[in-house]
């Protein structure tokens, strides 16, 4: 990434609002990840453990579960926006694609 001709980072001004925004997006992204881990574990992994591997059925279930979570998240995001109950917050509230 280093280039002798680019201005060095230490001379650039840091827009604290940019940094705060990035931090909030990061928080949202990891929060969403942990919520999916939790929901899909409940849906796909039966709580009796006879082996440490994910079997075929569990693996497929996880893939579909994550995909469906994204779909539900998007669908509800759109519905909420359509109701106009939160004008001005917009598409990034879904915690995805940040």
């Amino acid at each position, binding site marked *: 990434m280093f280039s002798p001709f680019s201005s060095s980072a230490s001379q650039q001004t840091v827009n604290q609002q940019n940094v705060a925004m990035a931090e909030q997006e990061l928080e*949202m992204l990891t*929060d*969403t990840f942990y*919520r999916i881990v939790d*929901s899909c574990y*409940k*849906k*796909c992994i039966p709580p009796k453990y006879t082996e440490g591997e994910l079997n075929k059925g569990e693996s*497929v*279930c996880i*893939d*579909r*579960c994550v*995909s*469906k*979570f994204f*779909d*539900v*998240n998007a*669908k*509800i*995001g759109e*519905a*909420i926006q359509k*109701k106009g*109950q*939160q004008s001005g*917050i917009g598409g990034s*509230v879904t*915690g995805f694609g940040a």
Partner: protein
Amino acid sequence: MDFGMYNDAERQQIQKIIEQKQMRDFLKFYTNLVDRCFNDCINDFTSKSLTSKEEKCISYCTDKFLKHNERVGQRFGELNQQLMQQQQQS
């Protein structure tokens, strides 16, 4: 909340805090909504895409959760106000 005890400058700062909080509160509401409706409606993992039954369930669940929040909010506001009045009289 009863703001009678604060001066104007303090009220301004508290107002700012409330505004910052609203974004966080909306996000919390939104994630609660998604978690609840996903957990209640999605139980078929034989395919990757949402079934029409699941889509309908999500839509109903979203509406119901919104209305539930609204109704709890109304009652909460009323009861909280009653409590404040009781505290001021005693």
